């Protein structure tokens, strides 16, 4: 079935709601409006307003209410109109959801999902990549699919997981990615990276909207005799250390690419892991290509300068290949 990324999200929600009556959706404008990006279009007609609940604009209490419902046996999925707004719910996410099992032994099976990322000129509060706030919070899982197949398969796994999952959907990909998506029971495991393209010369480790960018660069560089391996992390917490090390050992050169800003970004963590576990396997420095350490600017040319580009990636890759 040919589906866009956002249609795959919608299908995962629908299938999981049919499978398990404990699953319900909570969010602003997710009912008749169908969600800010139409990820829940039509679901209120199929399941009714009790299972597709329109909520007041109150992210903190929304996440809190989801946690409470999860304590009592439900499996709520909360939609954020933009993932930037999860900042309003920070306390509920990092204190209550993340630490309930550790401090009490109480599982919190909730999914907090919504669109993240830039490239669509959303400006400073509608383009951010908030993953590292949560990657730095033990007790959470953080997931970001890059393909429609993974959008569906990972979301289904996230809904079935007994831990709180931050599920970041990249809004740039919502309607730009369209591919054949398996119907029905197709799950993708959390915590496992995926080799998006095998290659012998150099590994580009990345996730989200940077995966298609890396694949584009890999196509271009293949014409110049350079074979890139593109590793799509898919889950950012817990990281697939085995997958990362296996790729680094195959190519012995690693560039980490992400759309998030540079300082404190995931590239720093992956670099440290490679130093600790694969120092002897590397034939060059670990490079990183990331967004700039600035807020996301609105002005389209400025945003273009802010984001990593295929051209800059090709340049960095060539630099690394020379080692």
């Amino acid at each position: 079935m040919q589906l866009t990324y956002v249609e795959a999200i919608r299908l995962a929600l629908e299938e999981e709601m049919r499978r398990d009556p404990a699953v319900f959706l909570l969010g602003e404008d997710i009912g008749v409006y169908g969600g800010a990006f139409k990820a829940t279009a039509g679901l209120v007609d199929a399941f009714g307003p009790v299972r597709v609940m329109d909520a007041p604009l109150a992210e903190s209490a929304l996440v809190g209410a989801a946690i409470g419902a999860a304590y009592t046996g439900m499996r709520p999925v909360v939609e954020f109109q933009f993932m930037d707004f999860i900042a309003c719910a920070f306390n509920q996410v990092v204190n209550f959801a993340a630490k309930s099992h550790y401090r009490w032994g109480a599982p919190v099976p909730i999914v907090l999902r919504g669109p993240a990322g830039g490239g669509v000129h959303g400006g400073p509060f509608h383009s951010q990549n908030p993953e590292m706030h949560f990657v730095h919070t033990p007790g959470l899982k953080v997931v970001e699919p890059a393909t429609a197949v993974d959008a569906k398969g990972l979301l289904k796994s996230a809904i079935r997981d007994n831990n709180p999952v931050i599920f970041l959907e990249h809004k740039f990909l919502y309607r730009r990615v369209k591919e054949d998506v398996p119907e029905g029971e197709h799950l993708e495991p959390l915590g496992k990276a995926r080799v998006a393209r095998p290659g012998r010369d150099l590994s580009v480790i990345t996730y989200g909207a940077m995966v298609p960018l890396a694949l584009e660069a890999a196509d271009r560089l293949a014409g110049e005799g350079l074979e890139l391996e593109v590793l799509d992390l898919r889950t950012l917490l817990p990281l697939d250390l085995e997958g990362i090390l296996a790729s680094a050992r195959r190519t012995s050169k690693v560039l980490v690419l992400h759309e998030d800003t540079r300082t404190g970004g995931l590239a720093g963590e992956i670099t440290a892991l490679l130093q600790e576990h694969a120092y002897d396997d590397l034939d060059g420095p670990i490079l990183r290509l990331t967004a700039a350490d600035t807020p996301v600017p609105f002005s389209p040319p400025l945003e273009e300068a802010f984001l990593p580009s295929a051209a800059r990636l090709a340049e960095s890759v060539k630099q690394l290949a020379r080692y």
Partner: protein
Amino acid sequence: MSTSSEPVISDRVAESPEKLRTLLRRMMTIREFEHLGEREFRNGLIRGYYHSYAGQEAVGVGFIEAMDLTRDYIVDHYRDHGHCLAVGLDAVNIYAELFGRRAGVSKGKGGSMHMYNQEKHFLGGDGIVGGGISVATGVGLALKRMGKGGLCVCFFGDGALDTGTFHESLNMASLWDVPIVYICINNQFSMGTRLDRHSSLTQLVDRAAGYGMATEQIDGQDIGVTLAAAERIFAGVRERQRPVFIEALTYRYQGHGIHDKPHNYRTPEEEDPWIHRDPLLILGQRLIEEKIMTGEQIEAMRQEVAAELEAKVEAAKQSPAPEDRELYEDVTL
């Protein structure tokens, strides 16, 4: 300003002598538990922070007594020792948690402010003021969906009304007809800041009424009042499936925490009328007046409770500390 010691008497429950004795014993247990806990804190056995429930016993014991914990749930705030005892958790496990031992109700990982027990439907114990109010609202929402007539009771202090999630949550609860009872334990202070210095309205019921829900201000010192109010209000919430906000007027005998010396911000003269309306004293006098117990019998009961708790402290001390490997357990499942 509603810091007056004048009670707002609504009604008072007529209970059997046996029930009244049980309620006195339960309140005494909480009072004595906190005395011993504070002692062990000063002895260095309890580390970190300690918030005593002494003085507020009639609120928790009254409301929890009226709950049906086979279907109802509690979402608690950080001053949680008394409520743990009121739901029937063993003082050994509560002390063990305070000592950071493996036998603690949260395996020693939560501490004073993070007690929890799923079997008793006791959903903590939370160390962030106001944080549990939205969680409780979600519990109430789920209970409504289960359709078994269960309700959620959410305890918090007067300081919690100043948080954003209080207002977000009450709006949701009223909008969604959630069967929940929000119980504001108004002990007159948000830590060391007096009610009229932290709240724009000092009649706290007025802050909840704006969300279109029933509200009630009650005397939190007299367990006859709190229990009667709880029974009546819970029956109404089950029937109407609507939230209710209660403001229970009470007083915190100790400072906010054990390190806090409250006479920086309040006077002994101010404390006096509250201490004269002590919840244990009020019920004790009633038992004497109704010739259910004598003063000597009450004192004997207190000594018996204190001796039992001494044994619980000793038993908790026997629990081993968690092993280092337990550090990594339970982060996720």
